[in-house]
């Protein structure tokens, strides 16, 4: 069981319902209609999450023409969830934020470790997973996004 190889199973993302920060409701498959999605789990008190969010927002804006989106699933509990929107507004982040205050989505996608990144292709297939953030890893994150977008455009 130990040291299993990467991405053995879990090839397709389930269609989970999402409550967005702006009050709207959607689902993961709904977001995938336009293109690939990078999912990240975060909380306002998570230091490495905040560091990587800055880059994820850049990629969300930079690759939006290719239909790419970043979905940030917030795991603040009632203790701090009242401050989530205030933080997002202060940072001018444009990515999509969903609320998951009792970790139901996180448990279904194994995102309890924060940050956890899951890159999903438009057809729902999971292409890359990553746990944690070491400064400098944003380079690898962007490389994975570019690889996916390039492979999608070459297939089409």
């Amino acid at each position, binding site marked *: 069981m130990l040291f299993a190889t990467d991405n053995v199973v879990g090839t*397709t993302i389930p269609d989970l319902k999402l409550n967005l920060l702006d*009050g709207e409701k959607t689902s993961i498959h709904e977001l995938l209609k336009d293109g690939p999605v990078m999912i990240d789990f975060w909380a306002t008190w998570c230091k490495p999450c905040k560091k990587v969010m800055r880059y994820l927002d850049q990629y969300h804006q930079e690759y939006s023409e290719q239909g790419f989106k970043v979905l940030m699933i917030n795991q603040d509990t*009632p203790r701090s969830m009242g*401050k989530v*929107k205030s933080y997002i507004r202060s940072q001018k982040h444009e990515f999509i934020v969903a609320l998951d205050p009792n970790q139901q989505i996180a448990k279904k996608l194994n995102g309890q470790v924060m940050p956890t990144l899951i890159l999903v292709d438009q057809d729902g297939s999971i292409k890359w*997973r990553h*746990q944690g953030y070491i400064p400098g890893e944003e380079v*690898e994150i962007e490389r994975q996004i570019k690889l996916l977008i390039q492979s999608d455009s070459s297939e089409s």
Partner: protein
Amino acid sequence: MKKLLPIVFILSSLFANDIDFNAALSANYGDNYDFYSYSENRLDLNFFYNDLQGWIQYEYSNPPDVGFPINDIRKFRIEYALNDVTIKFGDIYEFWGRGLALNQIDDQITNFDNGTRGLFLSYSNGPLSLSHLNGNSSIWLFGTDLRTPFYNNSHNMSGNQFQYDWNSFSLGLTQLQSNETHQKLFGDKAYINHKLKGIYGSWIATNADFFFEYVDKVSTEKMDFFQEVAHDSLKEGHGVYGNLNLYLGNWGLSTEYKRYAFDRGHTDFTADDYGNRIELQMMPTLGKEQNSTLLGRVAHNYNLNDERGVQLEVNGSLLDKLTLTAQYSHLSRNNNWQSVTPADWEDSAIPNYLPSSDPSSLPYWENYQEISGFGFGDKLYFKLGRGNNKEILKTTRYFDGQGLSIKKNWVYTDSVEWYDEWYYIDSSLIGIDTTLYNVEAKMWQEAKSFTIPMEINYSFNNNYTFGIGFQYQERTKNNITKGNSRTYSYSDSAWTLIKVNDPDSMVYSRDTQFLINEKKLKTQYNRMIYVTLSKAPTWSFTITHDWTNGFDGPTTVDPYYNPLEALIFGDLKYFTGERNRIEPPNFIQKRWVSAELAYNITSSQRVSIMYGSIQGGLFCSNGICRLIAPFNDGIKFSYSAIF
């Protein structure tokens, strides 16, 4: 429960082509000089088949870091969702409003799990949604043992939720009832029925949003030993929470208000205070969720039964590079308290909706400011914070009123001479003189802290990042005595003046509670420094040095002097064999040093190994605080993977 595993594997084989899986594996081991060892292994398996979803969590822990040993399926759930209907069976975790009626979490760090094993049904059609939950919850709470829970409160519960969304407005109604078997301190059990009714609403606009929730609660003790109803109504209470956020450009102001009045008391609640808030209710606390170790150790122990307060927080950014945060909160109990005698306390309502500053209401204040940002082409990251808090932890006595002085006149009726001295051996009371005077008899415990956390990281072009963090903290904790009286005479039913003939003679004293080697220490100074070197995306290495000058209680003893400590302190005698390792030098007793290497085997597999010591103390997560035992001179190993 183990029978479920082969069934899952057989089904997954049969439908292998159609079933999607994901899994997470975590393994944690620890062993130290104080025989603190643990082995925790957990596998989470999710599967998805058309409209069916399933979750199984298998755990083998013997013993776990906290909790009970287990070698079985710990959690499972089957979900079926088709169009407007969702059915869940198994371990359910639901969340209504902001949690004043129901908020279920499984926090394995604090070993708090208030989930329900049962059935959940929901129906949603356009703006309308209805849900029903029914099942059993078994909730374990800690007693004096820091690793093994002691109290078990079980709930046979059912609840209903209705929500209607209309444009930017939402309105919800909640109803929950539970039959609780509540474990008391000495093993006795109380049987209580709880009924909760709640309402919540929200409004979201471009530059503002608002949320409120109200819950009313009644509890009844079901029956006594003779199967008779003991109380018509054991306790009644309510909870209110409001949150208004305002946004202007890239600035946001978050304001929160709470008043939780499910019970009231002048001191902490114990296991024998039942009938108040139940553990299924996990609501906002109105304190800053800190991510600095030293600030986390001075977190307030929130009282969700009896506490009111306000919190304000401003978040904003400047020049797209700097992030600013400023937070303030003030909390107190819902009543001021007067100790008529040291054992009898009378409450008086605080005359408005805001928290009180009177020490008898156990007030708590905190404020925190932080600036963080990037520089040098985003290669430099820095954070500088400043936090203050002040808290009245307890009141031993608190009387401020009028009393009668009692001066007794005695006449001596018999005496004896002994070596030229006269001794009176009998006497009788001939009169009592009483005078009305002002009495102030106050004794309380007050804690203050001042903390500065800071952090700097610099990333080089070759994927290396060097980081250094430093946290500084000053803490005081004093027992304060104030007034002209400090004792109470039960025989005379009166407070006794310190100076009987001088009612105006007041005393004020502060007695510090910090000690080092049984000597009193006015201020506790804590410092923590950590240095990190990492190379993306592969590894990260951190050395942490935690130092204090005193303890809130007896001095801890670290009986083993390890080579990492000797290396950090530059103690060459350790390596030349001149140092007695069994009797380590005094300076290591106030320091904890650890080194941790984290290595990414692949992007989704991570391993870390830690060697050294970690100071114990208060750890808080999700509004639940737990005292963590110190980890002295040992190794921790952890592996996590997602598939």
